């Protein structure tokens, strides 16, 4: 008994002497991510938590401002010379963190590092993003040409995250050291300390071409638990947390130290319907399902208003969006009529799947609304992870459909959702399993193979009218990104979910 008393005393003393909640120094900004990536090499991973760090250490040719308009970054101007050749003028006198000056050689090297021309096996998981790039030519020290193998309308989008790395430095230190300790870019912050799985400390780079960021130090901490992140935010341990769910919003709004910043993002929700089998092989049933959902009520009641109804899956901010296509109205009576017309006067029993645990309650409401019009839905919730992935994507067994979302990979173009969701080519994503809409493949391909934006826009209008009528999915809404931000920091959430911390300022 005595010994345990001693223990308790020792703990109490330890607790009393420890500095209470690490008081942050004024010039440090701390951000929480759910994990810390295992490499800082910007070309050798494909993870959001890695990209969010990389963008603050590296620059790409182009940048997007908070309104998501293109801005010059390492390229000062650009234009298309033909359908397949683009010209970029490079910024002069840009310094890498090690003092080297950026050259056209570095730019060419960065692209070759990912596309590895002539090589059978590609090392970079980002290769698929830029596989259309055939060659990068150095015209003169300030000009490069990017040559694509076919018209590649997404080129500029892809260049917003395509970090430029230093050729000489990389060849000297090697890939391994570059990803772990000798990471060098041209971005606003340079590497100070990298502890894999735990935290990354960065320091402002005083020769950065934009000037110095407002915070001298930037710390990124890996905190997997939402509850822990919230506790850190409230006690001043971190300044920014991501993906605050609707149920936490009121708490963080009311707390004296914290605020909420949100922005509409591309992540679009839908219920994908399996068109191979009964009953969703019938158009009328698919339409009935669309009439059954009160989207506005879900956004307001279940998502704290942090969402917006979309007419199809094409996002209002994506290129190709047609505002003249309107969302399905909430009309349960019409839904019942259509269901009866389709041959189900007594309703029908179906199963829907989902692995979208953050939106479990929304899934339940959707299944309830469907059940009310006679599409009696059995909801099956999956653990996100390998088993679900195999079931839904690998083998296409999610009959009669699933509730999910698609984030467009941050590409603001209709193609970024239409192709993976609806194109039926064998190597595609889920479209090949679940979708059977005549003529849709050809239209998607057509819009993909020209850089004439007017033609593309027309084709996408046609596609949106077609899919609204054919209803291969229950169209729902897109989501907002919701950040929890400390009151001592000024920062606005972005529509591309980036944490571009050069824009963060201390609040006086």
């Amino acid at each position: 008994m005595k010994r345990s008393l001693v223990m308790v005393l020792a703990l109490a003393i330890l607790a009393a002497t420890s500095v209470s909640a690490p008081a942050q120094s004024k010039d440090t900004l701390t951000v929480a991510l759910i994990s810390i990536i295992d490499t800082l090499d910007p070309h050798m991973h494909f993870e959001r938590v890695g990209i969010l760090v990389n963008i603050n250490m590296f620059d790409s040719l182009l940048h997007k401002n908070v309104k998501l308009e293109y801005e010059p970054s390492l390229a000062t101007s650009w234009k298309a010379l033909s359908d397949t050749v683009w010209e970029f003028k490079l910024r002069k006198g840009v310094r890498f963190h090690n003092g080297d000056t950026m050259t056209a050689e570095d730019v060419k090297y960065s692209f070759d590092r990912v596309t590895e021309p002539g090589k059978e096996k590609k090392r970079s998981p980002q290769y698929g993003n830029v596989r259309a790039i055939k060659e990068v030519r150095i015209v003169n020290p300030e000009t490069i040409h990017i040559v694509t193998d076919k018209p590649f309308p997404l080129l500029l989008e892809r260049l917003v995250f395509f970090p430029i790395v230093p050729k000489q430095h990389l060849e000297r230190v090697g890939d391994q050291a570059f990803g772990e300790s000798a990471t060098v870019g041209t971005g606003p912050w340079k590497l100070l300390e990298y502890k894999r799985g735990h935290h990354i400390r960065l320091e402002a780079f005083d020769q950065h071409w934009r000037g110095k960021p407002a915070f001298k130090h930037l710390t990124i901490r890996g905190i997997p638990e939402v509850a822990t992140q919230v506790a850190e935010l409230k006690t001043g341990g971190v300044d920014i947390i991501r993906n605050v769910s609707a149920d936490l919003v009121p708490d963080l709004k009311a707390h004296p130290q914290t605020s909420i910043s949100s922005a509409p993002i591309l992540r679009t929700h839908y219920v994908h319907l399996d068109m191979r089998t009964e009953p969703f092989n019938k158009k009328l049933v698919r339409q009935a399902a669309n009439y059954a959902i009160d989207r506005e009520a879900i956004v307001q009641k279940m998502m704290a208003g942090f969402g917006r109804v979309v007419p199809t899956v094409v996002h209002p901010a994506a290129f190709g969006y047609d505002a003249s296509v309107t969302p399905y109205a909430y009309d349960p009576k019409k839904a019942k009529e259509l269901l009866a017309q389709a041959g189900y006067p007594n309703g029908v029993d179906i199963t829907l799947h989902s692995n979208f645990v953050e939106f479990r309650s929304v899934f339940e409401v959707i299944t309830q609304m469907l059940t009310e019009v006679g599409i009696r839905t059995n909801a099956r919730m999956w653990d996100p992870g390998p088993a679900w992935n195999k079931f839904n994507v690998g083998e296409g067994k999610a009959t009669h459909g699933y509730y999910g979302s698609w984030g467009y990979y941050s590409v603001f173009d209709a193609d970024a959702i239409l192709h993976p969701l609806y194109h039926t080519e064998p190597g595609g994503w889920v479209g090949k399993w679940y979708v059977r809409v005549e003529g849709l493949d050809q239209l998607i391909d057509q819009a993909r193979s020209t850089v004439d934006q007017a033609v593309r826009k027309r084709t996408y209008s046609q596609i949106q009218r077609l899919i609204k009528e054919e209803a291969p999915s229950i169209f729902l809404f897109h989501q907002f990104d919701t950040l929890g931000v400390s009151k001592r920091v000024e920062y606005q959430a972005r529509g591309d979910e980036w944490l571009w911390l050069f824009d963060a300022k201390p609040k006086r």
Partner: protein
Amino acid sequence: MTALLVRRVIRLLVVCLGVSLVTFSILHASGDPVSLVMPEAPEADRVVLRQALGLDDPLAIQFLRFFGNVATGNFGNSFFHRTPALSLVLERMPTTLTLTMLAMALALAVAVPVGIYSAVRRNSLVDHVATVAVFLGQSMPVFWTGIMLILLFAVQWRLLPVSGWESWSAVVLPAITLGTFSAPLLLRIVRSSMLEVVNLDYVRTARAKGVSEWMVILRHALKNAALPLVTVAGLQFGLLLGGAVITESVFAVPGVGRLIVSSIRQLDFPVVQAAVFFLAMIIVGVNFVVDMLYIYLNPQIRVR
């Protein structure tokens, strides 16, 4: 003694083989990592990556290759970022072991004295309080304990940091959380095995000889009562490594547990295999130590 050691080493090899086989089969049954590495890429690109990673060979070949590599200490590279799986695991191992051992020490520091006291002073106030505490401790999930401790000590009273692993103060809450998970069972074992021996003849004899009461308990009774405690503590060590997975997530501790969770999500075979392999080795090692302790504590085993 030598024969015993040889038997143990053979058993260790069999366990290693078994553990790798099971991890390997479960992982390979659960899907295609390539579709997770490049979700949007066309099939042609995926075929290329599958070849590069050796995932297109028959499973048996893949397993033999894997086991051959392991024998030479090569676990391969992470699928997601070409980092050697072994270094990812090894650099996180000390953190997890520190956490686990602290939790174990904490659990023993509470369980042994309180357990003895409860047994000796049966039905006293301390005994009753301990019984209730054991029930509470066993029914609280690690996750919940962790969050509650954070809310009280870090958010409400501001005594300790919420999460992290930089300072000793940050280590306190995770260690208590994990210790709470294991202390109740240990306490019960100490109490019941003490109860068994305190009334045996040899203890009575010791008392009759006039040995002081506490001497009797600590020197004579405890040494015999310690046998089941050692066994259970050894087993608990394995459980604690499991509990560390959750504790590490709650407190953002950069240990092996968190690495395993995230690698399973991504089907990063080499990392999961390396991590599970090393954890299994540690558990086997702990069992070995337990066996040795047994021999020390109970000479009868040596004779047999």
